[in-house]
């Protein structure tokens, strides 16, 4: 996977929970914004916002692992055994 593909994939994965957060927040405001607010449904939507927030965070954590390429390990070697190329 190239860096560009990695970034596109991250963006896609993060946008899902973000879109869900925005839609749930809009729903929450709609349920609260009437003459007789539907508190139960507003609460349900708010809980989903929390859930999706954690999901976005989990996506970012899992993606950090994807981006971190393994650090080269250093160890001692005898130079006599290495072929010289010049």
């Amino acid at each position, binding site marked *: 996977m190239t860096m560009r593909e990695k970034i*596109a994939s991250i*963006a*896609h*994965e993060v*946008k*899902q*929970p*973000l*879109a*869900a*957060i*925005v*839609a*749930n927040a*809009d*729903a929450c405001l*709609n*349920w609260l914004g009437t003459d007789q607010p539907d508190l139960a*449904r507003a609460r*349900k*939507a708010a809980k*989903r916002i929390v*859930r*999706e927030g954690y*999901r976005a965070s989990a996506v970012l954590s899992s993606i950090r692992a994807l981006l971190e390429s393994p650090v080269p390990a250093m160890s001692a070697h005898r130079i006599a055994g290495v072929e010289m190329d010049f």
Partner: protein
Amino acid sequence: MRGADVPEFAMKPTVYVVDDDAGIRDALDEMLTSAGMGVVTCASSSDYFRVLKPNLPSCLILDVALPEGSGIDLQRQLSTGDHPPIIFLTGASDIPTAVRAIKAGAVDFLTKPCRKADLLAAIETAFAQDCQVRAERVERMRLQYRHSCLTPREREVLPLVVGGLLNKQAAAKLGISETTLQIHRSRVMRKMEAESLAQLVRMAGKLAVPLPRTKSH
């Protein structure tokens, strides 16, 4: 699938949401329900085909990336028959896909997360489009029914009359007298419920009645 068997939605315009992401399905369901719409959610294209669709104005919100074939594939599959107008909603906006979707007749191509106002505006456009398509379909069926009530002779007279032939010319073409042709013609007008020749011409256009060939100049 959710919402399909809830009777309280029966008379509301319905939004079908096809998205493989459960979080998105729940959120859109909640948001659109809170905006007063009937919502039916589907996790895949095959779910969408299985769900019962009441005969109501509707639209389809489609994710581009679906597990079994893309949303674009579903759009292509649907294009062969009657289907509700489509709004695409995607996490990864790429221009070629958007262009293809719009060229194939999609109402809009929105990216996640999208603004509520944009989505509701697209849905409103889609509902209006669907109402118009439905009205035209009913009108076409009504005309087809009336056309089916014509006798074979009247069906021969119709294209000649709307094709602009004089009574005399049409009568000659069928080998009947002008008076007989006039009788057929007035019966055609009555059975088709046309108040004028212009109206009959428009009806024939909607029915795609093949017109007689006229000499080219």
